[in-house]
């Protein structure tokens, strides 16, 4: 067990290092950040002085060396644009993104699971076909378009919900959250729905196929023959069994919700780290991009680890030492 964790840890370090090298030199290939930072009216000497102050006048190899040196001293570098430590900028925005991702995940479960199970239990009903057709739409419609449509319908035309931004935040246990007030939920409803749309569809499909498979199992037939109520069969014998693969997939999807909320955050002006990343890429704010990638890699490794552990808990046949083979 312990050696498994060490191996996992080692793999994570390797992935992070590889990502750092890729991103660091990748940004350099795109362009020299200095041209995105300066005011166009600056003269050559002022530009050169700025480049020197930010270390951008040195060859890229040397810049990389200094970055790695800083890394070993626990310093991920400061944002070129904001002048603040990159990791603090990202952590400062992480709460908003986490909140959005959790709300989206909840929506995916609350909406997707019942619909999917319904479609699985009654595959021939018209309502089921409608649900399945709807899930195809959820897969295929582009997020930015759906986002704008949601805003147009629910904010501009009907006027129920605000068009953008995050609600007022409260601090609970040191974490800032907007989910404690009605206003906060009104703000998060549309962006979370937009972000959840794809996951709802995924959930419907997973739940439906899982349910259909379980329906044909002997234990369900036996339960039915025993005369159990349909609701008990669904809850105890079907739901519990289809939950294992769903937990796995949702865990991974949570990571992608956090990492790729960029589009939704931009359309709804949600002050999360996706929006920060987009701005950093546009301005070639390399320290922020590198730090973001590191945070996301750590997040993914961490989530994977938890899923593996959960898996071994849920299904005794799975052992964590299997990776050896």
């Amino acid at each position: 067990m312990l050696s498994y964790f060490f191996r996992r840890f080692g793999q994570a370090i390797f992935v992070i290092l590889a990502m750092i090298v890729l991103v660091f030199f990748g940004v350099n290939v795109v362009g020299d950040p200095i041209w995105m930072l300066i005011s166009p009216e600056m003269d050559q000497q002022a530009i050169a002085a700025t480049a020197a102050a930010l270390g951008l006048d040195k060859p890229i190899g040397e810049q990389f060396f200094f970055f790695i040196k800083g890394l070993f001293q626990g310093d991920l570098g400061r944002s070129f644009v904001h002048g603040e430590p990159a990791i603090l900028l990202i952590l400062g925005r992480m709460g908003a993104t986490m909140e959005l991702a959790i709300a989206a995940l909840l929506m995916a479960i609350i909406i997707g699971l019942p619909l999917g199970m319904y479609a699985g239990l009654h595959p021939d009903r018209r309502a089921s076909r409608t649900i399945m057709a709807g899930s195809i739409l959820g897969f295929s419609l582009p997020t930015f378009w759906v986002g704008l449509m949601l805003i147009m319908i629910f904010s501009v035309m009907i006027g129920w919900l605000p068009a953008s931004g995050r609600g007022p935040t409260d601090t609970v246990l040191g974490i800032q959250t907007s989910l404690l007030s009605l206003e906060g939920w009104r703000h998060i409803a549309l962006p979370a729905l937009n972000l959840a749309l794809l996951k709802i569809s995924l959930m419907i499909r997973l739940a439906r196929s899982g349910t259909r498979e379980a329906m044909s199992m002997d234990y369900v037939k036996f339960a039915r023959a025993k005369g159990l109520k349909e609701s008990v069969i669904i809850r105890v014998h079907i739901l519990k069994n289809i939950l294992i693969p769903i937990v796995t997939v949702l865990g991974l999807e949570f990571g992608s919700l956090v990492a790729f909320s960029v589009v939704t955050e931009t359309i709804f002006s949600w002050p999360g780290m996706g929006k920060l990343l987009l701005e950093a890429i546009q301005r070639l704010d390399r320290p922020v991009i590198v730090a973001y990638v590191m945070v996301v890699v750590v997040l993914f490794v961490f989530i994977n680890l938890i899923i593996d552990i959960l898996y071994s808990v849920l299904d005794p046949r799975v052992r964590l030492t299997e990776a050896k083979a």
Partner: protein
Amino acid sequence: MSRLLSFFRASLISCMALGSVMVHAQQELRIGVSAEPSSIDPHYHNLGPNNSLARHVFEPLVGQDPSQQLIPGLAQSWQTLNETTWEFKLRNNARFANGRPVTVEDVIASFRRAPNVPRSPASFAQFLTGMTFEQGADNKTILVKTSSPAPLVPTNLSVIAIMSKDCAEKLSTEDFNAARCDGGSGPYRFTEFKPGDRTVLERNPNYDGARPSWDKVTVRYLTSGPARVAALLAGDVDVIDNIPPADIAKLRGNANFTIAETLSNRVIYLHMDQFRENSPFITAKGGSPIKNPLRELRVRQALSMAINRQAIVDRIMDKAAVPAEQVLAKNFFGTSQKLQPSKFDLKAAQGLLADAGYKNGFKLKIHGPAGRYTNDTQIIEAIAQMFTRLGLEVEIETMPPANFFSRASTGANGLPEFSMILAGWGAGTGETSGSLRSLMGTVDKAKGSGAANRGRFSNAKLDSTLDIALATVDDKKRASLLAEASEIAFNDLGIIPVHYQTNVWASRKGLAVEARADEYTLAHKIKRQ
């Protein structure tokens, strides 16, 4: 019965409460802007959104009116004592938000801090080079001395925010971002800065100028254009800036909203390779190398005449632009009243091209940024088609700004990489000298000339006229010298101007927004009608 009565009472109270909330809400102005500041430290980053926000809290000595003419700021008047000494007199009643009066000490401390903010990505240093400061007759009079005649002293000082000595000497950029500075003399003070989300300001009770209409101002950052418009339509915000051209007509036709617009200080132009004997993206139509035709004035004239500027303005910019003939429109300082936009005349253009020896045209690739300027890619596509009608074979390539500006500046071993680019230029100081010098002055690092000259255009007469103008303190003489310099530059087509952008704001009905050339959205200039 008593239960019914108490229900009525309760609902009455809640109605009153609601009423007071609504009255209170009217004292608050909510603005949605397209670009986010990198900091609220007014000396950290010379960037439009930062400066726009800073103007609410920190005043410069000299202000700029909506068309960027100089007006009194923290200084009520200024004059030259001799060729190299300027005297500024501070407003007598000016006070900081903490109640302390503004003195020369504070001004000098601010000028000392502005050029030396650590890690500044775009420092204010160059606006203060060569100046020394000392107290004049009293602590409300400041003398600015320069080594040589410097007519731009008031212009340069109009971009430097003044803060209290305490803020200037003790606070770091992080402290400013945490709203710890109470030493601004403007109509507002910062209460909260949430990067990526909003900045909140409240009225400065000690401000000695006209009381602004709003007690509280929330500036929200809505970077996506359609989302910004939707936020206004939904009533989330009262005012938005930078309206996407496609939405202007729709908002104009809606009686619930008001549009405010003005000519900007930004010109969209073509820069041409004029320094290479053989330009990398120009060949004969068959692909064989030819001499760089862009060095020939008649070719540049032909290209300029082949552009149908009015069509670009009407169809691509949805009329949110005006055909351009120089770096700034004619109402700005130092512009030429004689220059006119090149008239669209395909026949004459073809004639000029033939005279220059390019009867059969040539092959040209135009590069440009995608998403840096309003509709930039479409403008390049249109120009490419117009050049094709002229008889050239034109290809285009647009790329992300981060990629484009790097390559266009130093892509070919430290030299500009492209043969022809589309770019934009905003004159932050609101007069022509800086723009002419950066865009078309001969590249000279020591002199600081030609810093943005990505075509390496060079005209000795332009350089010398600019040199004289920049040493002429008399405003009238300098204006006419700069007009002359503009004529030299644009008769020689150092760059081909296409159009001036229009800045457009929209607000809910009942608000009057001051439309400004510098793109600043100033809450204290937004009034109830």
